[in-house]
């Protein structure tokens, strides 16, 4: 079971934050087919948010075909996003860690690292499209 959290300063609406966290967990293999999401009562009892916010997030995930609600039982994961690429995550993460160490050694601070990564990521994405 995963546990949700909310970032009040992110500017992202609470319902979308919940959706993102489930997708994130699916992608990283933290959630798998058949796993149950926390019940609405559990989520609102922890985060003190409106129950409709949770329902909306779960409906959106259901619409995307990622989960399915079983009335009176709960909401369950029906699809995984972590396909075959999950095995490659480990080595890729290690390469990224080495890259980060190099960047720090070269004197880049957190903000510069994020900017460089974001910029390279976007340029590469554009090249793929082109």
């Amino acid at each position: 079971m995963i546990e949700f959290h909310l970032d009040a300063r992110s500017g992202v609406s609470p319902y979308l934050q919940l959706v993102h966290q489930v997708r994130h967990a699916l992608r990283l293999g933290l959630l798998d087919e058949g796993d149950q999401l926390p019940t609405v009562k559990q989520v609102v009892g922890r985060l003190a948010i409106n129950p409709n916010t949770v329902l909306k997030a779960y409906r959106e995930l259901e619409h995307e075909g990622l989960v399915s609600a079983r009335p009176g039982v709960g909401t369950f994961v029906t699809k995984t996003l972590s396909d075959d690429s999950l095995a490659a995550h480990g080595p890729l993460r290690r390469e990224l860690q080495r890259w980060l160490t190099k960047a720090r050694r070269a004197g880049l601070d957190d903000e510069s690292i994020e900017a460089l990564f974001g910029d390279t990521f976007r340029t590469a994405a554009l090249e793929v499209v082109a």
Partner: protein
Amino acid sequence: MSSVLEADGLGRRYGRRWALRDCTLDIPAGRVVALVGPNGAGKTTLLHLAVGLLEPTTGTIGVLGEKVSDTPAQLGRVGFVAQETPVYPALSVADHLRLGAHLNPGWDDRVAQERMQQLQLDPSQRAGSLSGGQRAQLALALAVAKRPKLLLLDEPVASLDPLARREFLQGLMEIASEQEVSVILSSHLVADLERVCDYLVLLTASRIQLAGEVEELLATHRRLIGPRRDIDSLPAGQQVIEASHTDRQSTLLVHTEEPIHDPAWAVEEVSVEDLVLAYMRQGTAAQRDPSPVWGVKR
């Protein structure tokens, strides 16, 4: 049943002072409503009118599809937690539950016991020695154990510390997720309620400034930032709620049903708190300068 609270031209006067005027509202069922406004804006008056503790001076008010009355049938369907969450200091927690069970025909002891278990209150403890947070939780438990269809809470978290405030709202949201109950809670601080409410009613200077579904309100308001310009030059559909200008720049908060196409503006979404503050300032300004008749040019 479609609406839980309907008011039409509702007003209440104390002597010469209007505590509430021209209040017209139609709040749909199943919402958690934030009733927000500065102290003295009329929030408590509106809640007291809704539970029949006050009579209207003008207009009408109804709850759960019926005119407000003090019949046992209606009292049984409306739960009310007054400001400062009053309890009987000399009575124990268990006494309060016994009293609740005795006085309310629809009393659901299972709900009461479940709340008590979660709160881990000692049944023999006198209510007078409870902490502010525990007292608020006891008052909430009493109000929900009668299984109301509408639950009204007047500033329930105002006097609580941040932790107790959070615990109270957690408990309240659990109840909202489990029971078919509509909730109206007031606060002078919108930040407390921003995440729990899906409907907003803003009172300023005895009048309703804004009322509606939070999602819709957020979708129809935008902040526009751009080169300085005259607000009269905006398209007809854009209603300016608040404007500030420097010699080069204008920052506006506008209400609009249409998307903003003008490329001169940087368009930003607004938060509930931004909205409330802008409308509150608008309402307070209108109060200071009540009518253009007084606007003598000098």
